[in-house]
């Protein structure tokens, strides 16, 4: 469960807020598409959920725990439950695929064990299983930089699952990929959402793709949530409200 209540974030005092009174609840097993024009506040909304951005007002709750007011140790505990995948994947290029997946465990294991590469057999087995699950069996020893974009995002997804998260956030997870690859990645995320009862929120700028995979849409415009409802009800009028008259 991920809940926002009246969340407001202003990056630069005097500038209009990036997020203004955003309220939203997402339940386990749900996969929500965040829609909105550039600069609407989608990334900000996503990053508030794990404390990468700290809003100045409102409340964000992850699995019943408030995020915003936490100290750094408690924040780390929350972050373990919230996995994030990024548009640019953000893998460690010089590490092997397997080691990249294992870094998903950094919130759970001690720094020294991780730094010395003393991963437990259970963790390594889990990483291999996850790599097989995302379709990268037999690629464990390849370096991350040797992979295609789609393969990299699969590694990032395996790394995210390594956290055994309750919540999965994706900031434009398919925007750097071609439509066919993007579709296969969204298929994988949708399947994992159901399998693991994840609370999934993805910002997507390709509305056609969003319609294919998400039953619920949340429209953001100028820092406000201007639509929250079934994807099927996202009519041209709603699109106008989200994207302005330039929207399709």
């Amino acid at each position, binding site marked *: 469960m991920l809940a926002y209540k009246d969340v407001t974030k202003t990056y630069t005092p005097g500038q209009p807020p990036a997020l203004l009174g955003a309220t939203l609840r997402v339940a386990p097993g749900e996969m929500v598409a965040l829609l909105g024009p550039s600069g609407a506040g989608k990334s900000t909304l996503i990053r508030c959920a794990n404390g990468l951005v700290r809003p100045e007002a409102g409340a964000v709750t992850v699995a019943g725990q408030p995020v915003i007011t936490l100290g750094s140790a408690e924040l780390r505990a929350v972050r373990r439950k919230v*996995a994030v995948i990024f548009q640019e994947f953000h893998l460690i290029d010089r590490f092997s695929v397997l080691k990249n997946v294992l870094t998903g465990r950094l919130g759970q294991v001690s720094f020294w064990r991780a730094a010395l590469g003393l991963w437990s057999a259970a963790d390594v087995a889990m990483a291999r299983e996850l790599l097989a699950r995302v379709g990268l069996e037999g690629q464990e020893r390849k370096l991350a930089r040797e992979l295609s974009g789609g393969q990299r995002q699969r590694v990032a997804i395996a790394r995210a699952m390594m956290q055994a998260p309750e919540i999965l956030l994706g900031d434009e997870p398919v925007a750097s990929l071609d439509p066919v690859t993007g579709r296969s990645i969204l298929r994988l995320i949708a399947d994992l959402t159901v399998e693991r009862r994840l609370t999934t929120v993805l910002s997507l700028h390709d509305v056609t793709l969003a319609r294919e995979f998400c039953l619920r849409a949340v429209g953001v415009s100028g820092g406000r949530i201007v639509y929250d409802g079934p994807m099927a009800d996202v009519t041209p009028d709603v699109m106008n409200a989200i994207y302005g008259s330039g929207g399709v």
Partner: protein
Amino acid sequence: MSEVLRLRGRLSDRFRAPALWTLVLGGLVGSVLVTGFTPDQMQTWSYAGEFIRGMFPPDWSVLPQVLRGMGETVGIAFLGTFVAFVLAFPLAFLTARNITGPWVGVPLRWLMAMLRSVPEVLWAIIFVVATEFGNIPGVLALAAHNIGILTKLIGEVYEEAPIGPQEAMAATGAGRAGVVWFGILPWAMPTVLSHTFFRFECNIRSAAILGVVGAGGIGTLLMQHRQLFQYQMMTVDVVGIIALVVLADWLGAAVRKQVS
């Protein structure tokens, strides 16, 4: 390009040539006045001919000593670089603005600036006076100067690390150490090592001279032979120093080729 920038470009173009000439001419006149460098001083050059004649033929009997001195010089350079690296590598975490706050970072950056602003030769003189003649003050001198340089260089590499992987590591719930170790170091390491090798290359050159102030290596022989007027032996010292500098250049080029 904006209109303002283009205008500024044109203005400075118009002034650039006269400014350059003024600088060069002014520099020439000023330098001659300051150094007292006048053509009639060239008379003293007649001694140069005598001196150079005195250097030949080289006295190769000192070759074993010179080779040993060269080895010591490389050893001083290696140890000096090694000690500097071992200290600078962790210190750089404390001077990098994206890792450590200003309360530790600012004073430490100042300290490092002071360490590196003292030239190796001056450090060598200080350590020779404080300890003894020989290789140890040479190592310490190179280490002191290079901690300042390497901490700055390595800290700047850490600062340039892309934010993405760091955020990805933080998002897993990793602590600060985890973020630095996995989010910054793998990206930074090749550049860190190439900076360190570059300093090793520079340190071979520096170490060759440090002996002149008593801090060990082949420079010690050069100083001794000069003081005893053994110019034919000094020739071999000079050949040894040139060989070292060529070796350092070659080593640096080879390493840079490997890294890039």
